[in-house]
């Protein structure tokens, strides 16, 4: 029996016809090209290059961006795409999030005309891969204190410093790197092969194994002057990218949760213990009913956030709530699904443990769960609690 996406309230009936067609196309692609290959890719710790090509071929990279060869879809469509990709694996969705929201978006919003024309069409088609360098070894939740810096040198900038935990880093053709120029955070485009730039892969992950994670190292890295993003200064630059990526994650987490629910439901129906399917026992039904409840709420949250994003009536706190909640419930659903599968739950024959391990990263990146709590706390009280001074 194929995958059946739980949609108890028929939330997808609120989508447009195109959004549903895009959903079906991406869902079919995940069934054919991700599900049969994902466990092996995880075992080997690789992101398959064919995924890059096929995602580009489907025309879904940089989904909500308009012009420059980008798809020009709604934010809701972008959310649907993230949900379907993450039903397959968070690593595939991460690739698309980073490419679209973290690498294409800043060029699209803050780049020069030449930069847009040079990079965006080829990034939309998947020909060029991008990555986003914000986090540093010593600055995760507080990127504002980053130490990577840029200095002017004639007609060049010289970058020095290091970024860590950078998705797509090693396979990227270009990196959007945030660094301080005269103490102010600015965005720079660094290309693979630029002098003084290297991107070694980080190994040994127990999570997001089918996604490439890397360090970016800049040692007197020399880039031409026209690689600075002219349109933005300060943390607003990286944070506007993160808003879009977090929006996608709030949908993506629903996909991972739907996958875990689908597996848990069918396992519970067929696994016989004490002469009956375990689904016949109240404790197991309670778990399934709880999953259904949380997934339905998360779907409605994601959908309504999509409507707000498309109408422009949103604040970053709306996105924080959805990212935090949906990843949180997805992770808990993955854990409960693992429990329902008993010992089988730890095998790669079922997707649940993979989703569970992936979601641990998703809980941390793009603003940790608690950073979003602090964002909401500040919104409620007007008092920031990120730091103990001031």
């Amino acid at each position: 029996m194929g995958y059946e996406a739980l949609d108890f309230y028929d939330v997808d009936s609120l989508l447009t016809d195109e959004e549903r067609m895009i959903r079906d196309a991406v869902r079919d692609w995940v069934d054919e090209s991700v599900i049969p290959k994902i466990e092996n890719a995880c075992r080997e710790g690789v992101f398959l290059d064919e995924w890059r090509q096929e995602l580009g071929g489907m025309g879904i990279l940089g989904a909500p961006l308009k012009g420059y060869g980008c798809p020009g879809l709604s934010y809701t469509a972008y959310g649907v795409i993230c949900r379907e990709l993450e039903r397959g694996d968070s690593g595939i969705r991460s690739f698309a999030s980073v490419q679209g929201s973290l690498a294409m978006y800043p060029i699209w919003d803050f780049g020069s005309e030449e930069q847009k024309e040079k990079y965006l069409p080829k990034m939309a088609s998947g020909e060029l891969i991008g990555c986003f360098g914000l986090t540093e070894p010593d600055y995760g939740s507080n990127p504002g204190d980053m130490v990577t810096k840029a200095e002017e040198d004639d007609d060049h900038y010289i970058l020095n410093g290091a970024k860590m935990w950078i998705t797509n880093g090693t396979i990227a053709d270009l990196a959007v790197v945030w660094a301080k120029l005269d103490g102010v955070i600015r965005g720079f485009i660094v290309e693979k092969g630029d002098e003084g730039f290297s991107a070694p892969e980080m190994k040994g992950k127990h999570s997001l194994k089918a996604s490439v994670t890397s360090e970016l190292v800049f040692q007197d890295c020399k880039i031409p002057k026209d690689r600075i993003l002219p349109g933005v200064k300060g943390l607003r630059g990286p944070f506007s990218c993160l808003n879009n990526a977090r929006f996608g994650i709030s949908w993506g987490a629903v996909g991972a949760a739907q996958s875990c629910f689908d597996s848990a439901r069918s396992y519970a129906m067929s696994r016989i213990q004490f002469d009956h399917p375990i689904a016949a026992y109240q404790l197991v039904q309670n778990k399934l009913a709880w999953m259904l409840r949380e997934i339905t709420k998360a779907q409605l949250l994601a959908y309504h956030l999509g409507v707000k994003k498309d109408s422009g009536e949103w604040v970053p706190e709306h996105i924080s709530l959805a990212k935090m909640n949906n990843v949180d419930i997805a992770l808990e659903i993955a854990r409960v699904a693992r429990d329902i599968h008993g010992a089988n739950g730890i095998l790669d024959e079922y997707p649940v443990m993979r989703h569970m391990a992936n979601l641990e990263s998703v809980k941390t990146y793009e603003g940790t769960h608690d950073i979003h709590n602090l964002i909401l706390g500040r919104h409620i009280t007007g008092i920031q609690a990120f730091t103990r001074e001031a």
Partner: protein
Amino acid sequence: MKVAVLIKQVPDTTARISISGGLVDEGSISKWTISPYDEYALEAALKLQSESGAKVVAITLGPQRSSKSLIDAAAVGADELMHVLYEGDTGSLSLQSALAAAVRKSEADIVLAGKQAADTNSGSTAPGVAQMLGLPCVGLVSEVKVVDGNFVATRSTSSGMERVSVNGPCVFAFDKGDEELRRPNVRGIMMAKKKPIESLSPADLGVSMEDGGVNVESVGYPPEKPAGQTFQGAASASEVVTKLREEANVI
């Protein structure tokens, strides 16, 4: 050159089917899709489009919901869409007459269709339409190419592959081929939504759906599989062999 592709919308092969009142309960079907053999016919038509500049007209007959299959066909590249809108049950004879009339109206030179539909499995549509149009029909085709003005079809036979040449209009009934089916991309989906669908009733085509010829009386579930049998020990080998030969017919 114009190629008509006959497309039927059927329940997805993974959809659960339930029966009420002797007929399939359509309301319970969660997902509809283009019948798989028709998808191979469509793929072949799109090949003729890219290789020989053919125009592809996708034609379906069915209720309102089946227009989705035309939009799906447009999303992968069909140029024109024709919907013979009919909400009731169709007998195979009236169905074939209506499709033949639609093909005539489309002015297509050749017709591509699946060898059978995934729901009814009757396999009568392609030869029936050919009969009504007075055209030859080549079945179990996996590929059609234009070679020196002729249509050359590859078809599988019990002994291998056969190449058949047809020097004029023809109906080709498609089997599953080796071709990878193209998947819709976002651009195709966005354009498909804007493509007009020519919607016609059977009456517009001068066809009456009254005399269906062959009609489905009722459908039922396949019989329950009998419970498996267990044998133990070398002594039962000859009994197992006999059963495999005479009951299961597998050796």
